[in-house]
């Protein structure tokens, strides 16, 4: 084949590829234009009927026959729109509706698929309609991290001990999104997760423990005081930081004493955490010790000490005014910064 013929052939191929590309682009645009118009009216009607039916309870589900007739894509779209805002009997009614539309059966099939993207889609569907644990629970240990994380979302509405136990184990998951999803779900489960969390904290390895303490800090339940007290003496600085912050969130006499003791910790991060804890407790009798930390070798500790004194109110401000004229330039600077914040009514 001559070079000329070869180039002509390539050019023809390119031309065909371009025609197909542009045709696909136009077809896609046209299809969406048509689909949006077609679906908008139906969605509005079904949305209204569905809202009324859910408000009335299960016996009015016959009004939702339009929902059953919708394409599955739109059914799932509607479920995704409604499900996050529903609880109790309304959620139960939504589940019944999904059952009528065959979505539960479909979700179950998808969850058992060999392909992870289908399992992921099935899990999402289960999270929307609240499928029984027998189908979704195994997916919390799925080999694919996206599927595990999505299964955690399903668990938000399942405060059963077996589910909470799996979530706690996920705090040490190798994948960040699973850890994050598990932490967030445990926080949302709240009361039901406290006792298992306490047990977990007592036995967890370091990776799981750090995640558990972050959950505990966000929950700030008084029952977590005992583990926080014991972990304030942990040999690991990152554990001590979280334990001290937790003590600051919980308070109590001996908790405050432990926080105050942490002001002398050799690790700057722990001293800083202790100052934040004292700020949140507003424990002004510690103002003298806190003021001494404005001369700390670590910058972050000095700044936090100044902000802590500011948080104490009048007793702290007295120290700050004294320190403003200190020979220690850094102490003087952070004191002035904190005083400026106070007088301006601004936040740090």
């Amino acid at each position, binding site marked *: 084949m001559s*070079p*000329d013929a070869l*180039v*002509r052939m*390539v*050019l023809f191929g*390119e*031309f065909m*590829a*371009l025609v197909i*590309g*542009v045709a*696909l*682009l*136009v077809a*896609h*645009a*046209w299809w*969406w*234009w048509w689909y949006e118009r077609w679906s908008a009216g139906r969605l509005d009607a079904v949305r209204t009927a569905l809202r009324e039916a859910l408000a009335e309870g299960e016996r009015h589900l016959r009004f939702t026959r339009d929902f059953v007739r919708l394409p599955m894509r739109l059914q799932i779209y509607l479920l995704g729109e409604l499900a*996050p805002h529903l609880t109790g009997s309304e959620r139960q009614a939504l589940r019944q509706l999904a059952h009528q539309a065959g979505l539960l059966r479909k979700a179950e099939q998808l969850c058992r698929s060999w392909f992870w*993207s289908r399992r*992921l*889609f099935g899990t999402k569907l289960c999270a929307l309609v609240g499928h029984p644990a027998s189908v979704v629970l195994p997916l919390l240990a799925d080999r694919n*991290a*996206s*599927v595990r*994380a*999505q299964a955690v*979302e399903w668990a938000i509405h399942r405060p059963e001990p077996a589910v909470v136990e799996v979530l706690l184990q996920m705090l040490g998951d190798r*994948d*960040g*999104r699973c850890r*994050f*999803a598990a*932490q*967030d779900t445990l*926080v949302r489960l709240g009361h039901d997760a406290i006792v298992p969390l306490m047990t977990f904290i007592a036995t967890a390895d370091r990776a799981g423990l750090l995640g558990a303490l*972050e*959950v505990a800090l*966000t929950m700030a339940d008084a029952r977590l005081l005992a583990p926080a007290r014991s972990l304030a003496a942990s040999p690991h600085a990152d554990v001590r930081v979280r334990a001290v912050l937790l003590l600051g969130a919980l308070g109590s006499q001996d908790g405050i004493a432990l926080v105050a003791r942490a002001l002398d910790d050799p690790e700057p991060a722990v001293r800083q955490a202790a100052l934040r804890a004292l700020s949140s407790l507003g424990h002004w009798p510690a103002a003298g010790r806190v003021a001494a930390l404005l001369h700390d070798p670590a*910058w*972050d500790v000095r*700044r936090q000490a*100044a902000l802590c004194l500011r948080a104490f109110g009048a007793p702290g401000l007295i120290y700050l005014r004294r320190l403003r004229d200190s020979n220690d330039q*850094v102490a003087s*600077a*952070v004191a*002035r*910064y904190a*005083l*400026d*914040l*106070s*007088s*301006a*009514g*601004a*936040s*740090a």
Partner: protein
Amino acid sequence: MMWYLAVAVEAIMGPVETAVLLYFCLINICYTSLLVAAVFEMRRMRNEAIGINDHIVVGSRLAPTISILAPAYNEEATITASVQSLLTLDYPNLEVVVIADGCKDSTVAVLTREFALVEVYRAYSARVPTKGVVALYRSARHANLVVVDKLNGGKADALNVGLNLASGDLVCAIDADTLIERGALVRLVRPMIIDPDVVATGGTIRPVNAVETKNGRVLDVTVPRTLLAGVQVVEYLRAFLLGRLGLNRLGGNLIISGAFGLFRREPMIASGGWLHDTVGEDMELVVRLRRLGYERGTASKVVFVPDPTAWTEVPESWGVLGGQRDRWHRGLTDTLWRHRRLIGNPKYGAMGLIVFPYFVLVELLAPIVEALGLIILAASLAVGLIDQTFALLFFAVALGIGLILSVATLLLDQASFLRYRRPGDLAWLVWWSIAENLGFRQMTVYWRLRGLVKYMRGRSDWGAMTRKGFATTPPAPVPAAVPPPRAG
């Protein structure tokens, strides 16, 4: 005489022609690989997005804190809208640090008036060395807004001041004139939550010219009808959705756009922040972060995320655009030269073996080879070395490949995000894909070559960027700045 010239040209052109042809094949193989990789990567990322839902991150108290660093230089026309849009982003733990880099206009006065700023004493730890800070402000109205007025030192210096003042686990570097979509941060942070080895993430940048905005929010997306802005829409789409998305899969990115990038704060400070003495500080920082990550065994991945979008104004005059492209190429050259020991170095994994050679061969050398190709074509035609029809056909093949890549990128964008919904807009996009080959592309080759020459001569100026601003009404006159009350 003509015969001697023809013989001479043939003797020189023969090997050069072969080299240019081989390069032509190599560059198109690279682009096709990027396109295939981008399609797979888009699918993976969209599935990943299902695995961790935006509303969970938005509603979570456990989401990492983000400090947005917004350097501003004479931005009085757009600063209020920009800061308002930043303060109302959908993210739970957010701090906004605006750095006025020695503004000569009333940027600071506008901010003081609009956000009730109060001056506080300048106490901060300068872990990264910078030029002096003139004043530090906190907002009495927005607890998470910090404004710093500093001596002019350029964008890198301004970002470093922001880095020193930021308190978040992550810092998001943006241009003050960039509009970020409400849900963009939640999507940008996703890879950071998933993988602790990710040190930086970047989102898509789209031109805001011709897009309707209000109060720092994008209301209606249309394709610009003017040549320069229209062509840049296609160009940006190709650079982000084809180039950067594809590179995610082929060894990771070397560039995070300076207009919208998210970084882990501690590795940033440990690496020394943004460099002052380069015009390509965005790319240099990313390469340095990745390089140090490999050398120290710390986080070294850089991920491009296609769905978070930031909108920025692109130049609509040939002069300003030329200056910008010339600077970009100088920045690229400088970064590749500074880190030249990475090329082909297996110690740096896929970055050394695939990504760095790609940037040298394709991104850096492309204008030289393209210019050479055009010169050879013209010279060969002049002395009758090649047939005119063949030359024309070959030229059409080269343009055709570019067009196919552009259309494929448009398809990828439409199928994934459906940003441009009107059929008319799509027609304009296809037209701009064709039109960019008729003069614009050749001009970019010239600007990039000019950038190379300037780099060789040691020029490091930034050039000027004139902006129209997003506001449809002119800003109200600003009273002279009044010194804020000081603590007694």
